[in-house]
């Protein structure tokens, strides 16, 4: 009897995934079933305002991509370097101070990062590049702060990967006279590549799905641009803005949100699956 209850609890997670796919798919189906909505317009035009029939998805997609790319430019190098320092160079005392700081960074709510991006980073960027060149809402500030938010994720996963590399590999390199830098870059890093790859892919997935930082700092109107100094709403920011206002069930605004959410869900799902596959396929087995 109890076993049946527990089995139901276990199966519930599958129901959640099915519910997500079903509910999102149902409304997205309504969106694409609308006679005004064609795949040509969806993938071919560059203006997104469903209420007046403009349904080109590209402004939202390019904004999501640009903010995520800026974030990864910050998070990957800094995260890897931090992980290398923590695992190869740091003394236990230094590690006991630095690791909690990274964990605190990981635990800060994203809306607080949004506040930081809008009220601290944006003024600094505007003073460096000139107030005429940088709008108050811009993708660069949101991307930078997103990078800082993702840095602990990449750092901790990479550090796990580095510590899984067995000591004999390092010791062999030292025995041949290699410096610590050479060992780190030419022995440890390649050996941990699968874990690092998984971390990077998860970081990208996190960046794409992030809402609050971009909702606060990146702008509140879809804008098809490649200029990071301009305001441009991302996919997630669009969902947040539209659902925060007046929304009537069944309207094209409502169903368009579900279409975007379905895309987000599928993209992050595929990325997470690839990340797990990378770990399984490329993991070096040493024993």
């Amino acid at each position, binding site marked *: 009897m109890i076993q049946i209850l527990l089995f139901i*609890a276990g*199966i519930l997670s599958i129901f959640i*995934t099915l519910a997500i796919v079903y509910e999102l798919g149902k409304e997205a189906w309504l969106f694409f079933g609308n006679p005004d909505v064609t795949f040509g317009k969806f993938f071919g035009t560059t203006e997104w305002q469903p209420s007046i029939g403009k349904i080109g998805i590209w402004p939202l997609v390019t904004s999501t991509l640009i903010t995520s790319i800026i974030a990864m430019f910050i998070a990957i190098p800094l995260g890897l370097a931090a992980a290398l320092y923590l695992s190869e160079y740091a003394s236990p005392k230094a590690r006991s101070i630095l690791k909690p700081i990274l964990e605190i960074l990981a635990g800060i709510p994203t809306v607080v990062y949004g506040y930081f991006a809008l009220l601290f980073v944006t003024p600094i960027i505007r003073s460096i590049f000139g107030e005429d060149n940088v709008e108050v809402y811009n993708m660069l500030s949101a991307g930078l702060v997103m990078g800082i938010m993702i840095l602990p994720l990449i750092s901790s996963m990479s550090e796990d990967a580095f510590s899984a590399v067995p000591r004999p590999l390092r010791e062999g390199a030292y025995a041949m006279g290699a410096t610590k830098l050479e060992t780190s870059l030419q022995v440890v890093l390649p050996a941990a590549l699968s874990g690092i790859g998984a971390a990077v892919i998860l970081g990208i997935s996190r960046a794409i*799905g992030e809402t609050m930082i971009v909702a606060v700092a990146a702008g509140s109107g879809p804008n098809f641009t490649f200029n990071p100094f301009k305001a441009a709403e991302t996919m997630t920011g669009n969902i947040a803005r539209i659902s925060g206002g007046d929304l009537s069930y069944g309207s094209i605004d409502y169903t368009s949100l579900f279409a975007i959410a379905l895309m987000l869900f599928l993209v992050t799902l595929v990325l997470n699956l690839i990340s797990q596959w990378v770990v399984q396929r490329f993991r070096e087995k040493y024993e």
Partner: protein
Amino acid sequence: MNQIKDKFPEGDSFRSELNGRYRSATIGQILFLSALLIAVISLTALLYNIVDGAFGYTAYEYKKDPATISSKPLTELNQQELLDVLKANISTGAYKKLNNEQAMETRSQADLLSLILERIIRIETKATWSLTQSLFHKAEIEAEVAEKYPDAKLEFRNWLTFSFLTSPMSSRAEFAGARTAILGSLWLVGIAVLFALPIGVGAAVYLQEYAPRNFLTSIIQTNINNLAGVPSIVYGMLGLALFVRVMEPFTSGKMFGVTDSNGRTILAAGLTMGVLVLPLIIINAQEAIKAVPDSLRQASYGVGATKWQTIWHHILPNSIAGILTGTILAISRAIGETAPLIVVGASTFITVDPNGPFSKFTALPIQIYQWTTRAQSEFHAIAASAIIVLMVMLLSLNATAILLRNRFQRRL
């Protein structure tokens, strides 16, 4: 032969090349350390920015001079005198309305004072400055105020006061408080944990103790790992479609006789947050149960216990530390999440505290989002104060988690 000599330099060329490699190694070490330092500096900048915003000078004007309505300074009046001032200066209709909300005699002195400030004197903030500006540029601020706002008074204000914590929402930044938001957040977390903890621990027990090693189990496991990585706004959309619309009779309370609400209640939002933290709780509980040594299980079976007896009396008590830690981590995540709440329909302006699972609600992160995106700088100041409240809540939660973990670990 020369080729070999080039690859293995000797003597002076060897020495110089070796020194070059040592130099690169030191530079590399410094670069890696600076990456960490950038992270530390960012954290410091963030904390500084928040504290900076919550305190500072404000310049404000009175619409009506307090000297015209009372001969003594307002802060020195007692409750009866404040009531008299109030009655004399606002319309009877407004007074009746306030009395209906809460009887005037029962209101505290601080409450009456803030009512007077809000309704009669009508303070209006003209400009605010941050803490560093207030500390280091006092003379410039005074000059600016004298020039731009000649009628305004300048005062150093701490935006994070006790009344901020206990006042309800208001459309004016000077009087807005976080009480409704804090209560809303607590309600949400309560419902989320009530929903997710039993199901999560049950699923973890099933997966670790009962499930056979077949394809279905590995699908369930992969599925849970993937759910942990789904963006939180997608959970919000699920909550909107499922809990707010499909389950509206349940979440709005119509099933239970409540008649004046729709599906956007605290129950729907709590369930959404519960679904969001469920994968985290399952994964953490699984780790905790895995960590219980197998010898305990075998010993229990050895004295004739059934599987459920073993689980209930031996495995669960010994894994409770890990399960608690996982729950508290899930709570920290749930308190800070904003996106799902926006989608499910948190009200951005309500003044009544939640009084049941079927009431409209707001939450602390929603208020922070709202206040940060307003243009006036006084709203940024109370956003900073609300952030401090949120961070203090998170800090105490995580500290409790670490304490509990240490305490239960010693017992084992």
